């Protein structure tokens, strides 16, 4: 079975950068077309920051074409944590690829419990 290239750990935190910086003031995060491991790391950082500040977040999943398992996993962790803290986390217009990926990975049931907006 062909393997993708092995990743090296990407824990490069720039000094003095607060993790919540990546989320725009209106709390919107857009997922890229290729939501890979790197995106998963950034996403987790950004969402962690938002959660710490109790900021509501809208995740725009329109552009997703390639959803990786690390990214899906990150979203599940985030959604669960946001829900537990009673902070709003919603998804906007998830693409077909987004949904298909969750189905394939076996996290469809979890995903179906999330909030989606137009």
């Amino acid at each position: 079975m062909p393997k993708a290239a092995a990743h090296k750990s990407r824990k490069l935190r720039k000094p003095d950068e607060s993790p919540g910086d990546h989320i725009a003031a209106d709390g919107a995060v857009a997922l890229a077309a290729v939501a890979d491991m790197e995106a998963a790391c950034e996403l987790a950082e950004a969402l962690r920051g938002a959660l710490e500040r109790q900021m509501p977040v809208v995740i725009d999943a329109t552009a997703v074409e390639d959803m990786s398992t690390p990214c899906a996993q990150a979203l599940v962790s985030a959604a669960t944590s946001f829900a537990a803290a009673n902070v709003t986390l919603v998804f906007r217009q998830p693409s077909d690829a987004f949904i298909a990926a969750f189905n394939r990975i076996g996290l469809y049931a979890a995903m179906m419990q999330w909030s989606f907006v137009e």
Partner: protein
Amino acid sequence: MDELDQLRQTYFQDCDELLGELESALMALDNGRADGDTLNDAFRAIHSIKGGADILHFDRLVRFAHTFESMLDRLRLGKLAVDPELASLMLRAGDAIADLVRAAQAGSEMPDGYENEIADALQSLALAAGAAAETAAANGEESAALNERDPAATVPTADAPLRHYRILLSPPADLFLQGNEPQLLIRALERLGSVKTVADASALPPLASFDAEQCYLRWTVDVRTTAGPEAIRDVFDLAVDKSDLEITELTAPPADAAVAGTSDAVPAPTPATAPSGPSPIKPASGTVPGVQAKAAPTVNSIRVDLEKLDYLVNLVGELVISQSMLAEQLSVLPTDKFPTLSRSIEEMSQHARNLQDGVMAVRTQPVKSVFARMPRLVRDLAVETGKNVRLLVSGETTEVDKTVVEQLFDPLLHMIRNAVDHGIESPAERGANGKPAQGTVRLSAAHVGGRIVIQVTDDGRGIDRARVRARAVERGLLDADSVLTEEQLDNLIFLPGLSTAETVSDISGRGVGMDVVRRNVERLGGRVLIRSVAGKGSTFYLSLPLTLAVLDGMIIGVGRETYVVPLTVILESLRPQARDVHRLVGGGEVLYVRGEYVPLVYLGRAFDVPDATKEPWEGLVMLVDADAGGKIGVVVDEIVGQQQVVIKSVESNYRALRGIAGATILGNGRVALILDVAGLAEAVGGAGQSPASAAA
């Protein structure tokens, strides 16, 4: 390239190796070495070929491989013994497998029923061993899945019953960091049938302590397919450790006639509960030797597309040329005024040379891949000619550039055919001459003097010089009154149209083989010659450059032309004294050097170069080794320098030229021809050589 293409490519590359291993094992069986290891090697090879074929839907290949595999399984379980007839049959089966693989690779089909005769023979032999004793699959052994009554059991066809597998995947936390993406595995499973995946996220930490690079998920995957468990296992092969994987078949395997179709309702997807169904199929079954999923190889090597490598080699070649052009341009600058620049250029030259060496080293391969085909060839030839011959091989780890390895097979084939066909006598004749009934052919390879030299030695009857000579005269290739040395007589066999076999056997043809061989070898910058002792045997010597791509050369000037002489052939260069140059009665010239007389070849005359220096003492003489032509002195004007050059073909757009091995592009952008000194010696004829050698 999408995954399926990638899978296909990898599969066929694997098959190359597997077919080689299979043949080696079958040859060993044929030679009477029917031990457990050999049988297991053969079984393993077929099994792997079958597995990939299954995933890629090469149904015919799968069916035949299955039949073959069943036979081998029977053998290694001791249910059947190997006799010569069976061994021969299996060799033929091996050939058939190879043909089916090639057809699949080419996207074509072998003729209908091509493999049926062999398959039928295999099956009837297998049945004769008492197949009725086969027990049902509940014992958990691999062989349970191989049902000789239904050889197509593992082929996913519409008629085969649907089997239900449950896969529990509990990967390590660094699954993603290892480069695995579970969706690819799921997709591969989807190709086998219908898949339902449920992930267990119970181990997923809250966001505050979540590490995106770790894998916290576990999976339960239900697959419904007609494929066998090997197909499932193969999906995870190399990606996932066996210990992280548990595959259970929830349906009873089809060998058990009582079970029809799938098991009942799909159990609720609760993760990590130990399944209670029958026959758990652990991926690594230690009980049956040799029946393991392929162990994940330690990654010490990678496969590289040859195209990528060739591209690299070309690039490096161009780099070397550019760098030497740069060096030449800057050589006019006084080094003392630009010391740093000069040093930098020098370093760059060194780097370019090292880079070139490095890239060339990547391309070298042991000649083993070519040598490995020879034992089978000898065996077949022996059978065809009714002779008793064994082949001894040595030096197969000798390495040469891939370009050379590819060219080796054909000349080797002819030389070995010649040895078995013409050299080795029939057992009766050998006995009458006091020789052992079994003839021996020795094949060896070694690095000698910057080249690779391959020898094929037989202990046969040697060359019948009288007959060869008579035939050559008869064909008008030789004057009746020429005087030839024994060695020259021997090498007459390389002339076209010479065949002195009593019966022109089908194999070696009408003597057209050896002259074509010689021409082809010379075209590569190689030499081939034969030495023989009457009654004792003959030896073929085949020498080839280590690479056809690059060589270290001495740049020489003759008139207004520049040539390159391979360093490996240069013995020394000197400026002769007039008194050491002697004219011969026949018209040639020789140079007296430390007690010997060396024939002179005027390059300017041989190549018709205007303005070439006329007298050797005004120019230089390079003493070179011209192989069969012995030592000759090449008269040139000057030595310009020494450098490594990239060999370019003159022949691809023009034709082969006697005395020219190729061309290169020098630092000034101009083309320089590379000399083939042996060819040069022959073309010029040398002093006192017969027309026969010159005419070849």
